[in-house]
């Protein structure tokens, strides 16, 4: 059989696929695994619409080869919600109308998640620079920044509550 | 009989006149009258035009009545983006 067999983890699930050596992770996610949340906006790593987390690091999946993810962990937008409970970022994006056409939204959510995992209280400037790799043509970014800021607050409160519960025993 | 002003390139179809007078109680009747009096305007109408009545532009609604004394204009049919 031609092609490369790959075993990996996507959104916590063990996954196996066979791909051509030239196929990107984006191609694999969309065409082999049916995960069409990540979008191809440019194919050259300039728009961020294909953003995923690879071992916790933000990458453009159009710049990663399918064969490279053997034994690694991939997180996509499809894995952000906890069952039917939306992630605070997803909730706040909706509440703040931080999407119009929505095609860039999966990429932004993943990039914002990566930001908040390493910086739980980013300033406006830190949010803007962290998201500078994600292009949006509809919103002018205004409501996106507000949403990320609000979600950061939600996550800090959740973290605090968790610590309290742990301390309580 | 409404006075119809023509704007832009449409004046070519009425020999350069800035306005003409034709019968018409609705946009449809007006365009039919224009077509009869000025055959060259039929092609322009076929390509797409708009009619303004007292400053409001109508692109499709040819049943729109033309009130007595209204200011009527014939314009290019524009699309948006």
């Amino acid at each position, binding site marked *: 059989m031609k092609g490369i067999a790959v075993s990996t983890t996507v959104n916590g699930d063990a996954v196996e696929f066979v791909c051509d050596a030239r196929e990107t992770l984006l191609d694999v996610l969309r065409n082999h695994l049916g995960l069409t949340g990540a979008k191809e906006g440019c*194919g050259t790593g300039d728009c961020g619409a294909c953003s995923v987390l690879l071992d916790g690091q933000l990458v453009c999946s159009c710049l990663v080869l399918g064969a490279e993810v053997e034994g690694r962990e991939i997180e996509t937008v499809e894995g*952000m919600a906890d069952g039917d409970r*939306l992630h605070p970022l997803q909730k706040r994006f*909706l509440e703040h109308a931080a999407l*119009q*056409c929505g095609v860039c939204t999966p990429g932004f959510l993943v990039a914002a998640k990566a930001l908040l995992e390493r910086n739980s209280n980013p300033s406006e400037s830190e*949010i803007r620079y962290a998201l*500078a790799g994600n292009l949006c043509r509809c919103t002018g970014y205004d409501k996106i920044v507000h949403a990320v800021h609000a979600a950061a607050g939600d996550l800090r409160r959740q973290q605090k509550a968790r610590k309290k519960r742990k301390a309580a025993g | 009989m409404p006075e119809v002003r023509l704007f832009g390139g449409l004046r070519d179809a009425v020999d350069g006149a800035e306005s003409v007078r034709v019968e018409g109680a609705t946009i449809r009747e007006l365009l039919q009258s224009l077509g009869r009096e000025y055959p060259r305007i039929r092609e322009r109408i076929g390509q797409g035009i708009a009619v303004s009545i007292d*400053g409001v532009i*109508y692109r499709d609604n040819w049943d729109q009545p033309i009130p007595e004394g209204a200011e009527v204009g014939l314009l290019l049919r524009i699309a948006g983006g």
Partner: protein
Amino acid sequence: MANDSKFTNQKFKLVGTRVMRPDGVDKVTGRARYGADASAPGQLVGAILRSPHAHATIRKIDTQKAEKLKGVKAVITSADLPDFTGGEGELYNVLENCMARGRALYDGHAVAAVAAVDAETARRALKLIKVDYKVLPHVTDVDEAMKPGAPVVQPVVKTKDKKAGPTNVANVTTYGHGDVDAGFGKADIIIEKSYKTEQVHQGYIEPHACLASVGPDGHGELWVTTQGPFAYRNWCATLLGMEMSQLKVTSSEIGGGFGGKTHVWIEPIALALSRKANRPVKLVMSREEVFRASGPTSPTSIDVRLGATRDGRIVAADAAMRYGNGAFPGIWGEVGAMAAWACYDIENVRSVGYEVLLNRPKVAAYRAPSAPMAAFAVESTVTLMAEALGMDPVEFRLKNAAREGTRASYGPTYGPIGIVPTLEAVKKHPHMRARLGKNQGRGVACGFWFNFGGQTCADLIIDVDGTVGLSVGTVDVGGARASLSLIAAEELGIPYEEVRCNIADTASLGHNDMTDGSRGTFSSGMATIFAARDAIEQLRVRAAKAWGIDVKNVSWKDGKAIAKGKRKSLTLKEIAEASPNTGGPISGHSQVVADGAGVSFASHICDVEVDPETGGTKVVRYTVVQDAGKAVHPDYVEGQFQGGAAQGIGWALNEEYVYGKDGRLQNPGFLDYRIPVCSDLPFIDTQILEIPNPNHPYGIRGVGETSIVPPLAAIANAVSDAAGVRMTHVPMSPPRVLAAIKASRAEKAPTG
């Protein structure tokens, strides 16, 4: 009367509230499906071979090797696309633009296409197609194209006003009134300036994509990202020689359009491939293809002459506006000429629009097409005049603003319009009083757009559990489903959550015009209101039946039928539940040609900081003031204002098509075609004015386009203020700003 479109000035319970959009969860979880997200069993992958020459005769195309390649199921050229346009010039141009017919007219022009079992095979097949080109001289600059001796793009085109031979000027149109020469004779100050704007693209993040399937019975289905499934169906069916009802078009979610998805590019090709291969074909444009071969907007070259008297009144205005049309003639210069002076009340005014052909892609509509460039030239000159007169730029505009009764420069007399309110709001806005720092400057500008209505229909279906399905035909580009659901809920008097809005396919609803011209919420909103009222008529009849009384004694209020004079009422739920036995399913329908959309105005304020060493500009503050008539969902109206402003900022500061001497596009990608990123922009403040549109029951005006019209000029005025030199060439990228600063210093430097 049920279908009366006059403004009713009612108090709203739901319209105007900020609710969650119904398609939102799908979009934040990755479930929403866009053009490239659908697949069909047995599908092939389509790919297009494109001309690498800006202008060439195609002597021969040899597809034999490609056809023989294993895995290739169809190869087509224009030989497979007979002309079914019946002499309709516009449609023939579309056909020729979709696939070259004997001549390549721009770098990227489609020449052949293949459908193969996978992308890799399709790519290899393209490489095996041999095209014999005879390269011809090309022209890509608007002013160069108008010079005598310039390469002629379309030999059959002659300027209608001239008896001379073929030229690149496809048409010249003139608008205005009065006597400009006499007017200039009266002026105390005359300012003459020339401006240039480079070509930009709509820049939607989602490339064109479709899945086409034509069966052996000639019936076809097309899943496609589009602003107008009905228009796409009509064009594709005609071009393929199909009857319209044989082709069903379903719009996917759309990842941005802004006018670029109101034209067909690859869709007829995908259908033709599918028909030939007898299998579904998925055809997606790469980003490079989007830039090279889907319509950008016009590059322009504009001369403006403005005359005013010392008391601050404009007495004469004249503009010569040369708009690049790309390889096929359009009306872009004419629309620019119509929009140019629309904001002002001028006694002697003229604008002349030129349609100039170029060896560039066929120009397409981009959000208020042609108006931003016109506003750039006019509003820059208006500010220059204010400066020359020693007047405040807002006061000068107010003194000359168009009002009710003003003869518009494009012809008709204005009814009630909103430019003065937007200027008054700008005057009062705290932004105008904010302190400016070092190297900072401020600019203001106004903008105008026409807005449209159009053919619209809607079905409002009342399900047996009393919830409502609203089916509309206007694609939702940015949140309209929420607004339309609010309108339906408002009319019926039921909770917003009990309405679900769907975008219908072309087989399920009558014709709907495209979502363009700022018409989506305006038109479908109107159709929704009428459909709801139609449904209410029927609900009243059912209630009357249940009570055994005359229907004229039944009224409808707050989601209930109420019997006159009695304390009896029936909820919508109760009537729906009983519907199987009272006459069957209940639904309201409306078909309307929505007209009377009304023109709209906006005024913007912009502060920038210019680095005199790098020429780099940072936007530090931006405010949009625009009249929406009635903001059905304020979040999404704000979003339209902010989005249009952001596109204008990109156009003003960075975006441009760069063509080489070889006529090839040098920057067909997001790295070198630089649109604004998150860190480039500040928060964008918005102020929504609500001056009701008298021709809509809720007073709604279109909002989507106007906000892209002022930014080029607002930013040019701000950059000119900050840098101390007048900028006349957009985009004002760092090299241009630096060059302008250097030139102005050289001018001012003492000689000798």
